[in-house]
Structure formats: C-alpha cells, structure tokens
C-alpha cells in the first residue's frame, strides 16, 4: 500500500543573517555550519532538507535542541520564509502563493499545536477551541457545536467556560489539540507539543494522539527531542542534526541499521525489546528448531521473550489472520537486541 505524498520538502535551505544569499553561496562551496558562523556571522538553520510526508501518517522529526526542528516545521505554513528550496503541499509550491492563499492554507488545511500551548489567555476554553473557525468569520453560536464536540473528544467536556489559566498544563494542551482538530484541517503540525508536560501526562497525551489518529487519519508532522516518544508515534522518522537530515525511514529500520555513530549514540539507551516489533526481526526461513506457537507481527520482542519463558531454543511462526508471514527464532531475536555498531560492520 503506497500512500500519497501530502507535504514534500525539496532542497530546503534556511540561513539566518543579514545576507543569506551570499552565505548560501558559501555553503554550496562546502562551508560548514560552524565555519559559516565564525567567518560571516550567519546561522545555517537548515541545509538541503528533502522529506516526503505521506497522507495519513505521523512523520516525526527528531533532533537535539538547536538542530533546526522548529525552523523546519515553520516552513510548512511559511511562518518562516526559506532561503532556497521548495515546499509542496498537495503538489503545489506554496512559496509562490500570495498572502490571501497563504491565509486560506493556514485557516483550512494546516493547524498547529505549540510547545507552550499559546492559547489566547483572554478567551474562554470554548473560544480558544473555536479560534480557527472564528478566524474564518464564524459567529460563536455557529462554531460552538463543533468546538464542544472536539473538547469532549479530548476529554474536556464541561470545561468550555473556564479560562486557560484555570487549567493544568496537560489540560491546556488538550485545548491546543482541540483547537487544531476543530479547524478540520487535514494537516496538523505539532512542535514539541508534549515536551512541556510531566512524564505521566505526556504518556496520556501520546495515547490520546494515537487514538485520535487511528480514527481521523490526519497527516501529522510531530516534532520531539525524545527518542522514546518518536519511536512510539512515528510512521516515518526523520533525524535532524545541525540543520541537516542524518537519517530517515521507518523507526524500526533506523533502530536496527543506524546510519552513523551519532544515531547509534541516540539509540543506545533505548529498551529495544519493547520498541522492536516481530515484523522487523522475522525471517522467511523455517527455523531448525521446532515451532512452539504463533505470534503477531505487531507484537514487541518483550512479549515474545515472555512467551518463550526465557528459553533460547524456541521458535515461533508469525501469522496474521491465520496466514503465516514468517518465522522468528529466539537466537536472531537476541541478536537484534544488541545494538549494531556501524564501524564494527565495516
């Protein structure tokens, strides 16, 4: 099943400073971010970004703080103008759009959730949830129904008349999500939406997002600096470092085959047994050992280890809806749990 590409970024560069075009020429000649800052005082925010974001998927962009994640996501609705490159939404280059077209894009096709919630403090929760609709010119009684529906959906039923400051951080971000959903846009941009929340609340919110996504199938661009969160949410994972993409692909793929030492370090502390799924490790080859049972391709390795009761001589068939897709034996499973070093391979 191949999905449509909804948003596409092509050869995108962003340089902050007085004369970005001159600095861009230097970058094309091969100057690095540090050299550029040293010699010209320009900040290389993004360099040569190429990412396709597919319809109905969650694309997670991950990187350390300062790696350019916020800069990148703000190019998708042109809150930041690029120095060079293209941003295609449904195949159209939005960089050629005028103000009115851009406003329509922001009002109707893209909504955004912010790290610091960015709710309007002088408006009630209900009015905040209906902000996108009110901005389109709808009167309160017209958007009330829609806003309330989404407030209910994110678990804030009956809180509509409160003011944002009366709510906890987690609840404020639920309002932020309701506000984005109520706009009925098919693209949702989330810039570190859960990073300001306590761990337990963060887990709740991640589950809420996955639940909503299973139902709504939006195109979501999610930014985080937290690998656990990235692996939990991502259909497609993009890893950013110093404004450049170091690796992108399926999260399992990245975990099993890190492209460079930077990503190895990133994935080193992950509980691989919990993150890796059977489908990423299974093989076609029928194992020598006898097959002891069936597992689903979506099961994580932890559950398989539990099923084998820790014995290394077991093997399972992987099946879905009664059809056998492949096999998994405990020895290859254990091998997959050991992080692979790029240099060890060479």
């Amino acid at each position, binding site marked *: 099943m191949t999905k449509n590409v909804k948003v596409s970024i092509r050869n995108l560069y962003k340089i902050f400073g007085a004369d970005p075009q001159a600095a861009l020429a230097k970058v094309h000649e091969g100057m690095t971010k540090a050299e550029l800052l040293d010699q010209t005082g320009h900040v290389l925010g993004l360099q040569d970004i190429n990412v396709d974001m597919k319809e109905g998927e969650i694309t997670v962009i991950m990187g350390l703080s300062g790696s350019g994640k916020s800069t990148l996501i703000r190019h998708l609705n042109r809150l930041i103008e690029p120095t060079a490159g293209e941003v295609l939404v449904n195949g159209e280059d939005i960089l050629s759009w005028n103000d009115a077209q851009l406003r329509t894009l*922001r009002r109707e096709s*893209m909504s955004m959730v*912010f790290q610091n919630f960015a709710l*309007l403090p002088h408006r009630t929760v209900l009015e905040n949830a209906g902000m996108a609709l009110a*901005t389109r010119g709808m009167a309160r009684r017209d958007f009330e129904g829609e806003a309330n529906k989404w407030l209910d959906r994110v678990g804030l039923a009956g809180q509509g008349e409160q003011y944002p400051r009366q709510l906890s951080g987690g609840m404020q971000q639920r309002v932020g999500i309701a506000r984005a959903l109520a706009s009925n846009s098919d693209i949702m941009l989330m810039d570190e939406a859960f990073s300001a929340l306590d761990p337990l609340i963060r887990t709740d919110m991640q589950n809420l997002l996955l639940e909503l996504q299973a139902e709504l199938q939006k195109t979501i661009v999610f930014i985080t600096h937290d690998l656990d969160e990235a692996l939990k949410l991502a259909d497609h994972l993009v890893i950013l470092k110093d404004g450049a993409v170091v690796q992108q692909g399926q999260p399992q793929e990245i975990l099993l085959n890190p492209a460079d030492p930077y990503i190895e370090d990133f994935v080193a502390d992950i509980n691989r047994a919990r993150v890796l799924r059977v489908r990423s490790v299974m093989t076609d080859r029928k194992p020598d050992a006898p097959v002891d049972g069936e597992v689903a391709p979506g099961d994580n390795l932890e559950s398989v280890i539990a099923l084998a009761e820790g014995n290394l001589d077991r093997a399972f068939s992987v099946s879905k809806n009664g059809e056998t897709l492949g096999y998994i034996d405990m020895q290859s499973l254990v091998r997959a749990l050991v992080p692979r070093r790029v240099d060890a391979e060479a």
Partner: protein
Amino acid sequence: MATYDRLFDTLGLRDWCGTEESDGPMSMADLLAKSSGSEATTSLRDFPFPSLDALHDACQAIPQSRDLTKGLETGFLDIRDALRVVVDPLTQPLSWALEDMLWVMTETPWWVMVPVLLLITYAVARSWKVVGFVALVLAGLAFVDHYEVAMQTLAIIFVCALICVLFGVPIGIAMSRSDRLQGVLTPVLDMLQTLPPFVYLIPLIFLFSVTEPKLYGIAVILYAIVPVVRLTNLGIRLVDPDVIEAADAFGMTKSQKLFGVQIPLALPNIMAGVNQTIMMSLAMVVIASMVSAPGLGILVLRGIRNLELGVGLIAGLGIVVLAIALDRVTKASLARIDASQTSR
C-alpha cells in the same frame, strides 16, 4: 577698546566688521567705562567669554544676543498668521468641547451631577468602596463651597484625557508596528515629558488669544498624552510572541490580530497609561490656570499672588483629594482588567 578687537584685526576682518563707532544703543559696560573716564584695562579675571555680546563690542557685524531673541520673536510673529490659518480651524472643536463640557458640568444642578458622577464611577470601578470614597470627596469639596471650581477642573480633565486617549492609543499602536516610527517619536515624547510645563505655554500664548479655552486645552493634551502613547506601544510590544505566532499560524489577518489579540492583551498597560494621563492632566490644569484655565488652580494662583494663605491651602488640598479620587477610580478599573486576564 573691546577685548576681542585684536582678534578681528589679526584675522583681517576689520573691514567686514564695519566702523568702530555705531549709533546702536550702548551697552551698560560701555556706559560704565565711559563714566569712569578711562578706558577699562581688562584684567585676566574679567576676561569675557567670547559671547555674542562680547564679540559685538569688537565687531559691529556680529549680532547681539538680544537680536537673537528678537529675531526669534519676529520670526514667530511672521509665521503666526499663516500658522493660525491652519491650526485655528483644526483646534476649534477643542474649544467648543471644553466650553460645552464646562457649561454642562457647572450648569447641571448638583443633585443631578453628583449622582451621575457616582454612576460613572461605579460603571468604571465596579466597587462600592470607591463610589463611597468619591461621594465623600465631592461632598467635602461642595461643603467648603468649592463645588463649582472642582467641576470646572474635572470638566477640563475629562475632555483632555478623552482626546489624549483618542489620539494616543492609535499613535501608540502605530509606534508598536514600526521601529522607525518608534525611533522618531521616542525623543519627541521624551521632550514633551521633560519640558517644564510653562514652556509649552509660551508659543501657545502667541498663537491663540488668552481667552480661548483651546490654549490651555492644547497645553494639557501635549503634556498628558505621553504616557498613554508610551504604554500602548510598550503593551503591544510585550504581548507574548508565542500567542502572536499562534494567531499567525491560524491565519488571522492583521486587523483580527490587532483587535482580537494585541489590544486585549495590552489593555492592562494601556489602562495604566490612561491612569497616568489623567493624573498628568490634573497637574497641568492647575498650571494652565495662569493662562485662564478655570478651576481649582485659579484659587491656588490667587493664594500665591495675594498671599491669601487659607485660600491657597484649601484649593491645594482640594486638588490633592481630587487627584486621589481620580487615581482610585482608574486604578480600580485597571485592577478589574488585570484580574480578568492575568496570563498563565
């Protein structure tokens, strides 16, 4: 011989300077020198600064300081008529507004006026305590027969403060949107605020006749508009950039952003500016009594001129309680706005 004669001689400017003797008026120093009978030999202690007057003594072609002030005066008088053609009609509504307001507030019987003022107080402050305080102040002023002058002072403040807000808020908004405009206006505002209030009056007296209310109206407005402009500008610039970004991200137009986000969030600061503007109007109204502004200031002035200690003191005290009342009312409304939207 004047001290700087030699200077002009050595520079070879003697011809340009013209003849030594002139039929111009003698300076006091010349007279003294003449009467002492001998040419003054200037000791080092008396060596004069090369001022216009000192240089003029040595060289007729250089003007005296009094020519400078005279020149300014004639210059101003020359453009006065042209200026009046423009400024007079523009500011005439101010005179009417002041006259009407003075008429309304003094001619309305007190038993109508006082309840109306108290109602306004309640509408603005929403606090019975403040209403009670204002009632007490008004009653106190009326009791010592200062009711009418107090109403005159209030009338002028109401009109001027309203105009300050009507012009000041848009100017502040424009300033918040353009760094260049801020750069230009900031020194102007600084000047308006630091100039001693008397100085405004000088050109205004020449421009308008002293009997016109707009004379003091303009002086009060120029002086009192500064805080509301400044604080509107500041308030809008201080609005949380995250919230502005959210407004942009959801596709708000500039005016949706201004009226739906920036002004409401800047309102506490704008109201603080209005409070200061009202207090400064009061201060200026008192000074403007020197140019015929009616009200409590007239009595203070009388106290000073005629050394009527009691009259001056009572009127001064009246100004103080009026100031406290105005401050309480505007602060109460400020607190109300603050409470309804202290962010996060």
